[in-house]
């Protein structure tokens, strides 16, 4: 171990915890790499989807989830948004010396549970312990691999004028939870993160509408950022109806006080889909049958232009321009 002087005992303990939590036959072989049978993959589709993400969140545990569930679901969802079936994950841990072993154990078990729920296996991993102050409690990197079924052609550049915009439920919960859990604000609201895997939901959607045009999980930057990316890549405009966007009253209240927009809040179990207009009703119906999509709603539609424009319709007239979130918000209009 190049860095960190956690001591041999500490390291052994951590390795035990990790192996214990993630036990599976692949890992148990203790080779330096996971070995995956190609034939099985080929049977499920014609392209491999692969993504990686590093998770850094403060606090590492919060109502309804922790950094571990985020690390699994985030990567699972990134894979699923291509229409792929997520299959395998890697897991890299960077642990700050002094992290409670019980905390680590809890988080790793939650990771395991999340992986089981999403139907993916954690097949390879790595653990580093670094000196105090060199990391903040725990950082996790996960890489995911999945298989894209033949025919799936989901891309940010495929939104067509007339298409409908769908979300799978309340927007902004996770962002509000994190703000609340940070302890800077003594908000009296009971909210849980929406952190959940979306691959099952996507499968459901693809069954009734194989030709989903765009799909993305609305994590950092929120729904507004995803829609701006779609509008830009597809060269179209998107108009949202404010009244149709599901936002919990508690989240709206937090936003009122903070002066922030729930459409910019991060989500960890919310997707934004753009589907052909004639399929939108059916898709929403199907989504509502799935546990991850009970609050699904059509929130807007795609227009021919101006390219890259997302507007929020609040009444009559042309609506308000909805920007993507870049860095911290500096007020423009005082």
């Amino acid at each position, binding site marked *: 171990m190049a860095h960190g002087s956690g001591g041999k005992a500490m390291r052994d303990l951590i390795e035990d915890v990790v192996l214990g939590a993630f036990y599976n036959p692949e890992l148990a072989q203790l080779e330096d790499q996971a070995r995956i049978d190609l034939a099985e993959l080929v049977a499920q589709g014609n392209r491999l989807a692969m993504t990686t993400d590093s998770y850094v969140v403060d606090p590492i545990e919060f109502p309804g989830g922790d950094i571990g569930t985020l690390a699994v679901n985030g990567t699972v969802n990134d894979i699923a948004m291509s229409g792929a079936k997520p299959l395998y994950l890697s897991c890299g841990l960077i642990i700050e010396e002094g992290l409670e072993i019980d905390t680590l154990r809890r988080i790793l078990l939650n990771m395991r549970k999340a992986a089981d729920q999403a139907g993916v296996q954690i097949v390879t991993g790595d653990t580093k312990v670094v000196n105090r102050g060199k990391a903040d409690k725990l950082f996790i990197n996960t890489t995911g691999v999945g298989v894209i079924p033949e025919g799936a052609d989901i891309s940010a550049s495929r939104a067509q004028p007339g298409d409908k915009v769908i979300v799978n439920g309340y927007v902004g919960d996770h962002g509000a939870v994190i703000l609340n859990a940070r302890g800077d604000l003594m908000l009296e609201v009971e909210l849980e993160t929406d952190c959940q895997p979306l691959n099952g939901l996507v499968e459901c959607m693809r069954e009734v509408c194989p030709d989903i045009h765009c799909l993305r999980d609305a994590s950092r930057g929120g729904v507004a950022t995803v829609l701006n990316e779609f509008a830009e890549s597809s060269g179209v405009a998107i108009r949202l109806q404010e009244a149709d966007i599901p936002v919990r009253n508690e989240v709206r209240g937090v936003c009122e006080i903070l002066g922030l927009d729930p459409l910019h809040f991060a989500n960890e179990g919310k997707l934004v889909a753009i589907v052909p207009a004639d399929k939108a009703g059916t898709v929403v119906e199907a989504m509502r049958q799935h546990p991850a999509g009970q609050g699904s709603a059509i929130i807007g539609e795609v227009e021919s232009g*101006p390219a890259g424009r997302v507007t929020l319709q609040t009444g009559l007239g042309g609506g308000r321009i909805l920007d993507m979130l870049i860095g911290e918000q500096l007020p423009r209009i005082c």
Partner: protein
Amino acid sequence: RDVSVELMDSHVMFSVSGQVQGVGFRPFVWRLATEMQLTGFVRNNGSGVEIGLCTTREIAGVFEQRLLAEKPDQSRIDSIDIHLLTEPAEWDNYLSDNDSFYILSSDQGSVKTGCTPDMATCPDCLIEIQNAGERRFQYPFTNCTWCGPRLSIITGIPYDRSTTSMKDFNLCPECQSEYDNPADRRFHAQPVACPECGPELLLVNTVGESVNDQKSAESNIRNQQEIAQSVTLLKAGNILAIKGLGGFHLVCDARNQNVVNLLRVRKHRPHKPFAIMVADQKQAEQLCLLTDDAWKLLSSSQSPIVLFYKRDSADLAEGVVPEQNRLGIMLPATPLHHLLMAEFDGPLIMTSGNASGEPQAIDNDEALRTLSDIADYFLINNRRIENRVDDSVVQWGNPITETGHISLMDCSEGRLSCRTEPYQVLRRARGYAPSTIILPEGFESAPSVLAMGGELKNTFCLLEGNRATLSSHMGDMESARSWDQYQQGVERFLMLYQFQPEYIAVDEHPEYLPSKHGEALSDKWQVPVKKVLHHHAHMVACLLDNHYPLNASPVLCLALDGLGMGEDKALWGGELLLGDYRDCSHLAGLKPLPLPGGAKAMREPWRNLLSLAWQIETDQRESILNHPALQNKPVTLVGQMIDNQLNSPLASSTGRLFDAFAAALGLFPDIITYEGQAAIALQMKAESVVHKLDQVQPLAFSLELNPDGKWQLDSSGALAELIERMILLSGGSDARDICFSDEIITEQALAFHKGLAEGLINLVAKSMTQLEVETLPDCLAITGGVSQNSLLLRLLGQQCSKRLPDMQLISHQHIPANDGGISIGQATVVAARYI
């Protein structure tokens, strides 16, 4: 021919530049030359108008004098270059015979004419529509070369009927002959029209169906029927959406309280004042006290909305200007409005026809779609508006008030003696835009710059050489519709002016939509983008409004506004700068305060009160937190936001400082429904007791040195003092005992203004001690939206003459001090840097 040429004394060529196209200049020259029995020609060219005369030099001199003295009202001559043709043969290029005077068609290859502003109905056209013998009797679209639509109907160049929305109307033979006749005042008047061949009115209900089912076969009788019926509907208490020159207005009886209330409810506009249209001087004087100069401004061909102090006796419904001492009035600017006003016989509310937060509607379908929840009927017409042109707004600094007090804009006492006319343009639009603004000495060879402007009250600007063209007010870019019109407007102006920028100037704030648009255009054209600090742009707008030469020595500048991006991403809004056209440095400013909730703090004044209170020592703070304005507010949460720097960026905003003190005085603490509402209320309260100025003890704003060695103005002590006074005056012992009696509010509002002015001039004086003695500036520019507060301006003037008697004070007049002046400031900074 050669023989006749040799008999002439001279071939004199005049090159006239300035605003000389589209204003009836050529027919004027034709009439003058014909009257003087001169031969020659006149024509438009790329830089203005070219006149050739075959005459003696003496007579040419007389001609020049008369040209200058008798030119059309709308025109402006910047220069006349006179030279003699040495080669008489050149004359052949212009004329085929020398017996008379000709108007030649323009040299289209080099046209770079741009466009002129829309003009209010001229006296000749007014007489015509009132005279039953005229064929344009009561015709609502009457115009001529001296008046009528320009910018609002233009789509391309050269300015010709085919490049305006008049191309849909074929001239009848009578109009055609007027159009062709140089002696006629409709010679080449592109929007010329008559009842036979021109646009027509149509009165419809909210679903677009004609209201009148017994229509005359004669078109002008139909027009008259629609006007008569509209007036009947207005008298019956209906709200009408009426298509005007540059956009729709919402119109109703200004004396009918019920309909005024209804309009407020339907428009979701609880407080913001409505503008009034009056028929004539008599009606205007019933509402406001007018001087001759004020009347001149009101009745000018620009025909702006002018803000005057309202008479207490004004016969208007309560809700027209709730809780304000000023009233915006305007006169009819088109024949339609003249006819409506004559028939209605009383003041009408004439407010912009838009749904809340949206720009004024300009086309019929859009109006029907977006205003059908507000208006009961629509008086539309079939002349398209091609460019939205809002009403201009001018603030009148009347030297005499009704109660006999000295003016709030006293030129001599307030040392604002550089002002030649006591008014300030707040919104530069119909009538003013896009006339050319001549830059001061030194800019003659400036490169061409396109400046994109700010985010709110946006205008954009084209600058080349010593001329700048400021667009009409484009509005707030948060609205998608304004943003669309902005982008189209930029494109259209570039085309109209055949403008190819060498530089693009943008605000320092990267998230302003116009800044992003500038970046995009820069990529497209491979033209460099240059960023300009928001407040440097304000300062430079002020300098050029005062014709300050390019190479004059640096000035000091108090830039007082809501918010703008400063150096190192700091949010500025109350700064002392030192600089010139090219550069500026930051000397001092207000002490930055957190803005809890970011832009939310702009709409909820109590947040600023809390933020300022939060700066005060804990024991004293506790008492202030009992202030009535902070009850039932999430004080603890917002306090935590401030402590934890959660969406609470630091900003040194004068606008928010006004909000904090307004909230402390109980003025709109919860929420404001239009920009500056609380600050305007604070000003108004103070103005109402301006006669107590000498008795009132100013609040003490203290100065402290920040770690960078810059002085900053700390307002928290002044707030603590204010709260203490209010508790004492209320006979209580705690902030919860405060009572908001009018006496307390008005006197303390004045104490705030007086104290802030003292504090700011103190800041200037202290900061000057840090400068080199040999290069001390002797001019202080005051700019930014807050400087539109004429009371503050006057008090700054008084303080300045006491503390810094050698300092010259300058402020704005023709270029808005608010963000409407940002674009011309940006353009000028970049021009100055790369000249």
